[in-house]
């Protein structure tokens, strides 16, 4: 696997070191770096100047141990070495741009990209947990035992977002749980941090699965937290339809409307659906029956469709 560093990330990280924002950088080295950097401004050709800047920044990126730091984290995931063709690190401008992505090319193979803000290089305590977490995402995605698939078994785009949101939470829980359990001899602060992390995730989990009773939430959360070998299929099954709404054959609060597929708490009164509207629905959903119900929004649409008249009437 080849490691690639984006120019902007390297430059930003080195600038941060030279400005004393990362500890353990000797001031004399920072001065040497600045003097070398100043000289490059005199190179007249813009492309040659850019190349020279990148070479210099990369040299100090290595000199100040940042490249080794990243390589050390990567070594924690031996599976990546054989599974990826390249692993790139690039600069993220904002927190919501940070993360890891896997790009699969049918001929050129798999490439991983990790995006991170340069401020993470200020403290190892910000950088290392982030990298360990994101690289475990990549490791899972490339591990056949995890069985990752990018397909989401839901067609409605809004529902897909909901499912992916839940899936992301579940996956993050299992990742940080596995990382917490890795420490061979947990120290007092490490145990406290792990416990705080677990509480934070549990709160988030309870919020996402508030429709379950407390006993079930606790049971599922503990199972996730203690799962040493989670699988994609299991996580996705928890994310896709946690209420079991798809199996309901009658309208239930929070169930899915059989027409639009959205979860709804606003079911139409079956007795109030007139025969013309039911007929209009059946023209598009032949197997639909009034007993299956429909949300008020859909019923309204089909009622309105009764009022439509062919444009030719007005000609």
């Amino acid at each position, binding site marked *: 696997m080849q490691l690639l560093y984006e120019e*902007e990330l390297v*430059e930003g990280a080195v*600038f941060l070191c030279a*400005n*004393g*924002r990362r500890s353990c950088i000797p*001031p004399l080295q*920072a001065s040497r770096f*600045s003097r070398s*950097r*100043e000289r490059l*401004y005199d190179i007249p050709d813009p492309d040659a100047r850019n190349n020279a*800047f990148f070479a210099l920044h990369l040299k100090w990126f290595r000199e100040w141990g940042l490249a080794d730091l990243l390589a050390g984290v990567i070594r924690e995931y031996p599976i990546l070495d054989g599974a990826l063709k390249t692993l790139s690190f690039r*600069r*993220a*401008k*904002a*927190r919501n741009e940070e993360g890891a992505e896997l790009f699969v090319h049918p001929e050129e193979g798999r490439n991983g990209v990790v995006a991170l*803000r*340069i*401020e993470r290089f200020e403290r190892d305590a910000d950088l290392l947990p982030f990298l360990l977490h994101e690289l475990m995402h990549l490791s899972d995605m490339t591990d056949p035992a995890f069985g990752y698939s990018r397909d989401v078994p839901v067609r409605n785009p809004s529902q897909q977002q909901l499912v992916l949101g839940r899936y992301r939470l579940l996956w993050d829980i299992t990742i940080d749980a596995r990382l917490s359990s890795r420490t061979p001899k947990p120290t007092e602060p490490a145990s406290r941090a792990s416990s705080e992390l677990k509480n934070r995730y549990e709160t988030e989990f309870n919020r996402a699965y508030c429709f379950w009773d407390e006993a079930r939430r606790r049971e599922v959360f503990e199972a996730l937290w203690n799962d040493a070998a989670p699988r994609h299929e299991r996580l996705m099954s928890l994310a896709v339809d946690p209420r079991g709404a798809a199996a309901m054959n009658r309208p239930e609060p929070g169930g899915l409307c059989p027409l639009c597929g959205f979860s709804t708490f606003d079911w139409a009164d079956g007795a109030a659906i007139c025969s013309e509207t039911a007929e209009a629905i059946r023209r598009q959903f032949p197997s639909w029956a009034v007993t299956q119900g429909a949300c008020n929004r859909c019923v309204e649409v089909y009622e309105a469709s009764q009022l439509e008249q062919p444009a030719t009437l007005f000609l």
Partner: protein
Amino acid sequence: MSTVYNWQLGREMEYPYDATYPNEQFAFVFNINRCIACQTCTMACKSTWTFSKGQEYMWWNNVETKPYGGYPHHWDVKLLDLLEKANPEGQIWNDQPLEKRAPYGRFGGKTVFDAAQQNLAPEGAQAALGYLPTDEEWSGPNKFEDNPLSEIKGKRGQFFPGGEQLPNHKTWFFYLQRLCNHCTYPACLAACPRKAIYKRREDGIVLIDQERCRGYRKCVEACPYKKPMYRGATRTSEKCIGCYPRIEGREPDTGGVPTQTRCMAGCIGQIRLQGLIELNPDGVWKENRANPLYYLVHVAKVALPLYPQFGTSPNGYYIPPRWVPRPYLRQMFGPGVDAAIERYTVPDRELLAVLQLFGKDERICARYEIQKGPKVFETTVRGKPFELYNDTIIGYSRKGQEIVRVTVEEPVHIRPDQHANSI
């Protein structure tokens, strides 16, 4: 460190260089009360100076919604916080105005230069107290646009009963127009390790020498208003150049007289008035009552500097918004706020005339005259008598040519019948 006199603070202060002052100083007054945040100024600047590669996040002029907005995000809150930490509960004014040399009283707290001496940044002592914004803070230049602050949580579809009454609205925001203040004591200049930043002798415009700059970003860190910006594509810092070719009278359309910047000239709300100010040897404004800026800042005292307590002696002045709670405004514009709002709310005859000069011509008005007209209206405003005279104000360029002639009462044009519905 040298000791310089800062009239906005009413006292001497420490500054890394000796005091030297330009022949004239670039300055401007913005009337916040009239801004609609159309961002025409922002785009006028962007389309003139910062449309190239690497300048995507560069907004030399921006208009932000206060109290939440800011570019970079929360620039002022972060700096106020740093100053408060450096001098807990000590950032206070002794508000006894001493006329021209101390019109807002005496500031007893610490400036960014004072506070820097006790503040050790990771790489050593700073020249001016500051911080380097993150990439994230440079994103979204108009974040929090139109987000109001309220004492009470609102209800959808309902107005506050009585919440809109002056002197303070209970739900409020306002637009703050910002560009480089071309400060008298620039923190960016003080902090530059390459001495690449200089203040022009002819007009006091602060510039970064692109040949000398080596991208250390100390100016970005030190400027309390966060107006120098780093450009990754050239690896140098850049900032507002005060449209200096226009100030020099090199705009082809205006006949060789000093012309207002693009952002001023483009303002459709006519909230901006820019000019050049003559200075005394101690940096205090030379008395020139016929100059509209001198009148607004030193005679009517309706225009106040932005965060004077930072200590850089900014040359941008603002007529504060009438509806915003006073403690917020006092923090932002100093102790002159209450008197300024009172005068602006019930303007006298001369102030009303001078306010008509805003945005009327792109040439810089060096002097004005008022021709008296008849009284056309009288009333009381919040218990004070107010009389409206239809005076005519005439503005002259530096060469003495008439550039503006406008009456206080806006002329009414009655469209003839045959064109009643045409534009």
